[in-house]
């Protein structure tokens, strides 16, 4: 589609045609998706995609094997798969048990949702660089970054939750990652002290969010949704993105990503960073179908009526119906000072 979905009034179509769960009033978690219908072109396709389960996908871990060898190992075990058109190392499995085969046991494969492999690809770190993964656990994107860096340079992986750090470390070790240093801290206050003050060439800011985009993987994702949480988490997201922009060198790259549709957690966070830090947004050339970020957002019921810096259109929104994946949001910054 050519332009961003700027029609912000609630469309008449869609509201009546969608299935109702429990009559009048709040109809359960899927009701949360109502507020995003003004942003999407094809509401019917959006709602239908959100209700379909996701295919099981594994990423080939090139630290320990090659795409060819991993594919051969799966084929030898009669595990049926189909490679994603945009990424030869992302394999959609016919049956949803990625952990029960020999190549998985050897750390050649890692279960990872297809769309979650996009941000590391866009950050595109090179071997030998210094990279920060600000919200790293449980490590799918961290280990993908390590593989793109050919397990060289330094990858600093931060998380605020010790239990999740345990999962991160386990995944990193299973996949044979040796270039990672794991830190336990609030990413908003990320300290460079353990590394003698060295900053980064690139940073991935894949923040905690309200996760509507994971509804296909986790149908309970919206059970706990509240607007207060959206507002609260948006404050955290702004703090983490600003810290990433501060610790990345001039000319360096920062990728911001979420799995939410909420503009409060997406374009509004970009808008804040553009105003507060020396940075600019870059065009993103995605191999998947997507639409631009939105420059305005209204949620009348909650008194929201915002416009954003026009450059947030360079960000990309991936809706579930676009590529038969989860939902995703992604933006790429260059640090300019």
């Amino acid at each position, binding site marked *: 589609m050519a332009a961003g979905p700027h029609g912000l009034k609630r469309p008449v179509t869609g509201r009546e045609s969608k299935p109702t769960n429990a009559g009048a009033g709040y109809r359960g978690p899927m009701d949360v998706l109502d507020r995003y219908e003004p942003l999407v072109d094809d509401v019917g396709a959006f709602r239908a995609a959100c209700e379909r389960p996701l295919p099981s996908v594994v990423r080939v871990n090139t630290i320990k094997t090659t795409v060819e*060898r*991993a594919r051969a190992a799966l084929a030898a075990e009669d595990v049926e798969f189909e490679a994603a058109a945009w990424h030869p190392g992302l394999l959609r499995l016919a049956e949803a048990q990625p952990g029960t085969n020999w*190549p998985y*046991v050897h750390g050649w494969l890692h279960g990872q949702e297809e769309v979650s492999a996009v941000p590391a690809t866009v950050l595109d770190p090179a071997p030998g660089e210094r990279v920060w993964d600000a919200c790293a656990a449980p490590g799918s994107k961290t280990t993908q970054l390590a593989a793109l860096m050919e397990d060289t340079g330094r990858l600093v992986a931060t998380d605020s939750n010790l239990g999740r750090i345990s999962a991160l*470390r386990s995944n990193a*070790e299973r996949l044979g*990652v040796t*270039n990672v240093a*794991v830190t336990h801290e609030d990413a908003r206050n990320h300290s460079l002290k353990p590394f003698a003050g060295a900053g980064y060439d690139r940073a991935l800011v894949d923040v905690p969010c309200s996760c509507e985009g994971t509804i296909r993987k986790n149908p309970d994702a919206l059970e706990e949704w509240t607007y207060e949480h959206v507002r609260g988490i948006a404050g955290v997201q702004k703090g983490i993105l600003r810290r990433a922009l501060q610790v990345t060198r001039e000319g360096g790259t920062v990728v911001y990503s979420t799995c939410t549709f909420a503009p409060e957690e997406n374009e509004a966070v970009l808008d804040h960073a553009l105003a507060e830090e020396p940075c600019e947004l870059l065009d993103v050339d995605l191999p998947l179908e997507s639409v631009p970020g939105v420059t305005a957002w209204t949620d009348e019921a909650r008194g929201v009526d915002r416009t954003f810096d026009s450059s947030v259109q360079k960000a990309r929104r991936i809706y579930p119906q676009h590529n038969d994946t989860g939902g995703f949001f992604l933006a790429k910054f260059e640090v300019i000072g």
Partner: protein
Amino acid sequence: MAETNDSHRFDRLPATAADRTVAERPTRAEVLAFFADRFGIPSAVFADHSFWERGAGKIWALAGEEPDPVEVEGLGMTVLRTRREHWKPTLEAAQRFGDAATANVLHLGRPEARAFLAGHDQELAWDGDWGYLLVRHDLAGAPATLGVGLYLHGELRSQVPKGRQRDLGE
């Protein structure tokens, strides 16, 4: 350099015994010698890795270097348990670096590899040294190192950690 072992901090291994300031801390030279002498893994395999200790005897391999010491939650991967009579490589080290090994490698057929992965001990003939062995099998047309076993008294004892054990069935 720190004079004691600190369980919350990574300290780089001294290059040689002459550089050692913490009693019983293994040296880089000793770690390289262990992998070379026991398994025939050339020291060049670790040329781009530094070795660190956190917690008594737990050795981590890190790609590249960092200023010593480092106070973080993880630094590279755990590769080796030292400060005991018989040093023991981790399953992760076996999988990541073990394909370069030429000695004390036990090559299993598929049924035996399955039992090993499931954590079972099994009686097997082996005319080499007793102790910790690297366990391999064929995968996708070439040998691939699967983990670490302990061979004693005609028996291969699986050392696959509980969390990594799998029953892949028949």
